[in-house]
């Protein structure tokens, strides 16, 4: 078993375990920590896929900024253990099998579709996508969307201020 495959296996298991922990955890803070585990293992997978810039952004923005925001809000509100309401019988006996079925249907489709098999072993380029190429693409072909996101962030900041303001 080669080293990249070993790294992939470890990170994939960690990511799935984190996602299951997110569902199983009773307190929101445990769910948040599980989600951080998922994000960090995904960052390692991005490195493995030859996208170091995306991996860095994943760590800094997702695992850093967004999850700190989540943990901050959880601590601020301090609502404690999540109260369990009794599920409807329909959700319990039809929802779980259907959810699992959806999961396996998507996985099966991806693993056996023509797109999946065409690229399965292969055409993966040897050239690692450098940050220089990515930024050239971002600031030439995608310049307008890039500028538009700055307006989006401005609107989001204003919206958060207006919503959180004391009346």
């Amino acid at each position: 078993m080669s080293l990249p495959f070993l790294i992939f296996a470890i990170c994939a298991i960690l990511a799935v375990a984190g996602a299951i922990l997110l569902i199983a955890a009773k307190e929101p803070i445990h769910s948040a920590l599980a989600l951080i585990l998922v994000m960090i293992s995904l960052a390692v997978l991005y490195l493995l896929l030859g996208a170091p810039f995306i991996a860095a952004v994943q760590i800094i923005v997702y695992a850093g900024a967004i999850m700190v925001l989540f943990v901050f809000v959880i601590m601020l509100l301090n609502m404690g253990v999540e109260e369990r309401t009794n599920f409807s019988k329909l959700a319990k006996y039809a929802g779980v099998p259907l959810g699992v079925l959806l999961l396996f249907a998507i996985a099966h489709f991806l693993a056996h579709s023509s797109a999946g098999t065409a690229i399965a072993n292969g055409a993966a380029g040897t050239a690692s996508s450098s940050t220089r190429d990515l930024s050239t693409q971002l600031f030439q072909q995608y310049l307008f969307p890039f500028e538009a996101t700055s307006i989006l962030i401005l609107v989001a900041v204003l919206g958060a201020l207006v919503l959180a303001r004391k009346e």
Partner: protein
Amino acid sequence: MNLSVVPVSYYLVLSAVLFGLGVIAFVFKRNIITIFMSIELMLNAVNLAFVAFARAHNHLDGLVFVFFVIVVAAAEAAVGLAIVIMLAQNRQSLNVERVNLLKF
């Protein structure tokens, strides 16, 4: 290090599994913050698929898309958590079943 050892379809299957777990968490969780986190989990799963496809086709557009998804997710988290704080102040609870004014 030879990077093309792991087939791209493995990444796609992992992405699908994470997305399915995100959907399950979204449906089953009752705490609004946890529901928010399951949305982030689904976004992450889609990002993984984007990067895997960018790798498979040796094309950078997928990475640019991931960049934009992360930016939009950051903006969405800021506004969404402001709404959560407002909700918690008004209702004294984070349970989505108590927020039913618009429910049919």
